[in-house]
């Protein structure tokens, strides 16, 4: 019952927000009027460096959520509250990540969304946990994050285990692959995803005929691709970012390697198609969650984002948006922004976000994570299918 | 003092590519002697020095010093055995003080190690103080004590030569090898140098001297060996060497007629 009610509420909020968006688009709004309580939400992502565009995208998502909450007018414990976003640059560097985390704790933020990378999220999570501040990441995919035994860690994004399983499921069932080659870029992301994919694919009866490695700075993949060609796989799963995946696909075709190309969320970008050129046609990528168009309010969000920032969503903005919303929802249910009071409510969340229905398992991962597969047709990623992963995978040691 | 020679060089050969820099050179140096090594440019004098002090490995032949064979290719061991040297073109530690230069010379004779250096044990402190005192004393000995705290590179040419000698003496050698110490010195400085070398010998250190200044060599050395194209022409007291026909031909020839 209450579930239905909340659903309606958020849908109404979305519509309201859409209407009121142009009116209150400024994030540096005037200081809170007297009587208003300020709720500080910390947001951390690399805002400079090679991943700045992704970090900025995350920030945009958070800003949209904050503005929407403020325009909706939330009251907690009888006081009207105002949400403020404190956005910090963690440079995708573990060291800077902890510095930023410390800063949030110093400033007594009520909650944190982020960080973007697993490498920063994990060391920072300890600091939040020590301070009892809830943390919701919308993009860190490393399973370890939620497996450290902290009560404050949540994630509104399918982790590597989920995504690896979904990709493997797609490869073995939908594409009926018997032989698979894997390349990973030896980053925490690439290697983590590749390992989960491998486990799941082997469990599903496929044979891994080649496993090769590259780096996140490489441009020449011909040696490893030639080796892969010798094993003649049905599918090549390339576990890396778009900057490597695009050129690698192109080089694979030059060598006459005909395997179907599969890449994770790091390659599910327009950039990948640009770099791979014609070779991208017909190849597949995966992205956690359900396509925005299929979600209630999703298309609206997409349009709003485009209207406001005059660009397409890069990758994780909707997830970060949901992260903020889930946090605010928990505060409302607890009727308090005090971390100790609303933290239990976060774990009990049943929130219909723009990316998924958000419910957490015991560790803080999505209990019903979904992963969608897309295919390049005519230079755009087109939705193919959504794979529900039934249950969170068992913890890696 | 035993009658055994201090240094026995026997049948040393050394070639660089096709050039035979030393051909079967054998010389003997007695204890307490000032021994001159002369020869025209490229005669192999410095090569012999470098073989002797362990910078080069001779192709064949051997050195016996103080009744023990010298280890080749280990300059630090040579120093420990008691041979010290200076260089033809002065090689000081330019950015260290003069005093520190001399203290470095004591290196092989000190017993403290990293651990005692870090802990500053009483032994270490005593040794450091002693090292400093000895270095200062040596600088006084060669007559440049007043420049102890100047950087080596700021010393005058003559003082740098003296500093190099002090540094070599600091290794507590039995044999001091000087490679053209008078090069570039004026008559005054040369006279001072001569005096210094004689004092050193008087203090019981043998000296092996490479020098171009024939007058200095003939006046100073007890015995002289002459090298030409890597070959030993003769080895005798200056008076005899000066009369040797091949020496006159090979080396003194032009000078004698001038």
């Amino acid at each position, binding site marked *: 019952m209450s579930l239905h009610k909340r659903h309606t509420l958020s849908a109404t909020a979305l519509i309201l927000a859409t209407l009121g968006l142009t009116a209150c688009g400024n994030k540096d709004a005037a200081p809170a009027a007297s009587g208003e309580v300020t709720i500080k939400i910390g947001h951390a992502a690399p805002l*400079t460096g090679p991943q700045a565009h992704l970090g900025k995208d995350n920030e945009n998502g958070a800003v949209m959520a904050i503005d929407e909450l403020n325009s909706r007018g939330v009251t907690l414990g009888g006081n009207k509250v105002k949400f403020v976003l404190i956005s910090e640059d963690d*440079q995708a*560097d*573990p*060291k800077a990540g902890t*510095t930023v985390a*410390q*800063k949030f704790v*110093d*400033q007594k933020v009520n909650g944190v969304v982020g960080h973007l990378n697993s490498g920063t999220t*994990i*060391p920072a999570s*300890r600091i939040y946990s020590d301070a009892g501040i809830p943390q919701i990441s919308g993009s860190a995919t490393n399973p370890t994050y939620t497996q*450290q035994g902290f009560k404050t860690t949540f994630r509104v994004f399918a982790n590597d285990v989920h995504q690896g399983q979904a990709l493997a499921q797609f490869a073995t069932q939908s594409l009926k692959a018997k032989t698979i080659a894997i390349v990973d870029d*030896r*980053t*925490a992301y690439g*290697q*983590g995803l590749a390992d989960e994919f491998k486990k799941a694919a082997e469990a599903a009866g496929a044979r891994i005929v080649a496993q090769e490695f590259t780096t996140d700075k490489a441009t020449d993949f011909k040696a490893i691709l030639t080796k892969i060609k010798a094993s003649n796989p049905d599918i090549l799963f390339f576990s890396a970012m778009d900057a490597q995946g695009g050129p690698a696909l192109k080089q694979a075709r030059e060598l006459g390697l005909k395997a179907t190309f599969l890449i994770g969320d790091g390659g599910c970008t327009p950039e990948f198609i640009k770099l791979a050129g014609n070779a991208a046609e017909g190849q597949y990528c995966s992205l956690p969650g359900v396509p925005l168009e299929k979600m209630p309010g999703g298309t609206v969000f997409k349009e709003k984002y485009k209207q406001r920032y005059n660009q397409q969503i890069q990758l994780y903005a909707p997830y970060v948006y949901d992260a903020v919303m889930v946090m605010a929802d928990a505060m409302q249910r607890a009727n308090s922004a005090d971390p100790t009071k609303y933290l239990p409510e976060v774990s009990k969340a049943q929130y219909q976000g723009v990316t998924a229905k958000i419910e957490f398992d015991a560790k803080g991962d999505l209990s019903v994570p979904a992963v969608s597969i897309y295919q390049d047709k005519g230079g755009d990623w087109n939705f193919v299918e959504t794979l529900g992963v039934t249950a969170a995978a068992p913890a890696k040691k | 003092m035993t009658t055994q020679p201090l240094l026995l060089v026997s049948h040393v050969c050394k070639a660089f590519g096709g050039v035979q820099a030393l051909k079967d050179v054998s010389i003997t140096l007695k204890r307490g002697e000032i021994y001159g090594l002369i020869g025209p440019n490229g005669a192999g004098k410095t090569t012999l020095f470098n073989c002797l002090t362990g*910078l080069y490995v001779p192709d064949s032949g051997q050195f016996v010093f103080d009744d023990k064979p010298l280890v080749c290719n280990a300059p*630090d061991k040579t*120093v420990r055995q008691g041979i*010290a*040297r200076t*260089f033809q073109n002065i090689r*000081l*530690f330019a*950015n*260290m003080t003069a005093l*520190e230069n001399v*203290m*470095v*010379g004591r*290196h*092989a*004779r000190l*017993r*403290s190690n*990293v651990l005692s*250096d*870090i802990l500053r044990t009483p032994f*270490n402190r005593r040794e*450091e103080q002693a090292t400093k005192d000895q270095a200062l*004393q*040596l600088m*006084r*000995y060669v007559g440049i*004590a*007043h420049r*102890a*705290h*100047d*950087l080596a590179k700021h010393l005058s040419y003559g003082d740098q030569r003296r500093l190099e000698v002090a540094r*070599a*003496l*600091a*290794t*507590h050698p039995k044999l001091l090898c000087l490679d053209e110490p008078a090069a570039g010195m004026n008559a005054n400085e040369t006279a001072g140098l001569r005096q210094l070398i004689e004092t050193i010998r008087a*203090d019981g*250190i043998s000296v092996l001297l490479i020098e171009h200044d024939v007058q200095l060599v003939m006046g100073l050395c007890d015995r002289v060996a002459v090298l030409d194209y890597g070959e030993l022409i003769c080895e005798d007291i200056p008076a005899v060497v000066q009369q040797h026909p091949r020496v006159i031909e090979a080396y003194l020839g032009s000078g004698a007629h001038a």
Partner: protein
Amino acid sequence: MKMAGRFLARLRNPNGSSMHWVAWVVLGVLLATMPWIIGASFGNTWLRILNFALLYVMLALGLNIVVGFAGLLDMGYIAFYAVGAYLWALLASPQFGLHWPLWAILPLGAAVAGLFGVLLGAPTLKLRGDYLAIVTLGFGEIIRIFLNNLNAPVNITNGPQGISAIDPVHFGSVSLARPIDLGFTTLPSLVAYYYLFLVAALLIIAIALRLESSRVGRAWAAIREDEVAAKACGINTRNVKLLAFAMGATFGGVAGGLFAGFQQFVSPESFGLLESVMVLCMVVLGGMGHIPGVILGALLLTLLPEFFRHIAAPLQQSLFGKVFVDPESLRMLLFGLALVLVMRYRPSGLWPSPQRRREIDDVLNTDAPADLPVNPT
């Protein structure tokens, strides 16, 4: 800087005046109260930054032994930091289920890092400065690549995922990760770490100072100045060079261990080539071979980027209404420029060792002839 120099001179000069011990007391009080002042006025963020700065001071002093003292350009220095950090991570984390105490791991980390220093040094002994630079760079990368890949076939380092849930620094049951109750007051975790790092840094400074003015320090300087002459002075250049690598690596290992205990997470990305270059910048810009200069370099290069973060973007925003250059790139750009300019105009760094003053000792003034000193050994 001039004031700092004067202050320093006062610290050094034992027979200066009563100001001597006053200066020490002032410095001591300053260092002891620093975390409280900073914590109170700027927040724990800056305290954390200060802790990292202390780690970099240790690293820079370690590299200074190799580069500044012995004149061996090592561009893979961060590898030793990595060795120390990973050793701690492996021996005090759930990775192997080991939880060794500090007094066991830290010396072991130092020793293993020192051993790696020797291993790296041994094949490179005969190389000239510039070759040495490239070979050490290669060694550093090789170590990083191995750390990144040693998760299969046997999982040792956990690969690119890094090792998390590392034990914090603890003494018995007292963990520095939690506030420590001292009875009269509570010591916040970051302050406790500050004191620990300060003690470690002071210890390393003391060791570096003592090494500099010792038998081995002179030997290093001699090698740096002229290797052939050093040999002719009876210095076993091979051993002395290896010793420099080992000592430098040891400091790196200690700093690495403390880093792992402090951060409680290590992954190979913290030990890239850029970090080596960074530490080298600290040594070179501060003043190669001059300990106070190197400390200054380390502090400057850890603190300045943080100021940049707070200033560069907002400043551009207000000036141009747009951020043209993000602080991270600006920082690297300035480092590059600084390296070129410093080499050209101040090759001995921002704070080089003062020109050795001529201390004319009374004893020295007498130019009387002396006897050849008698050798005690």
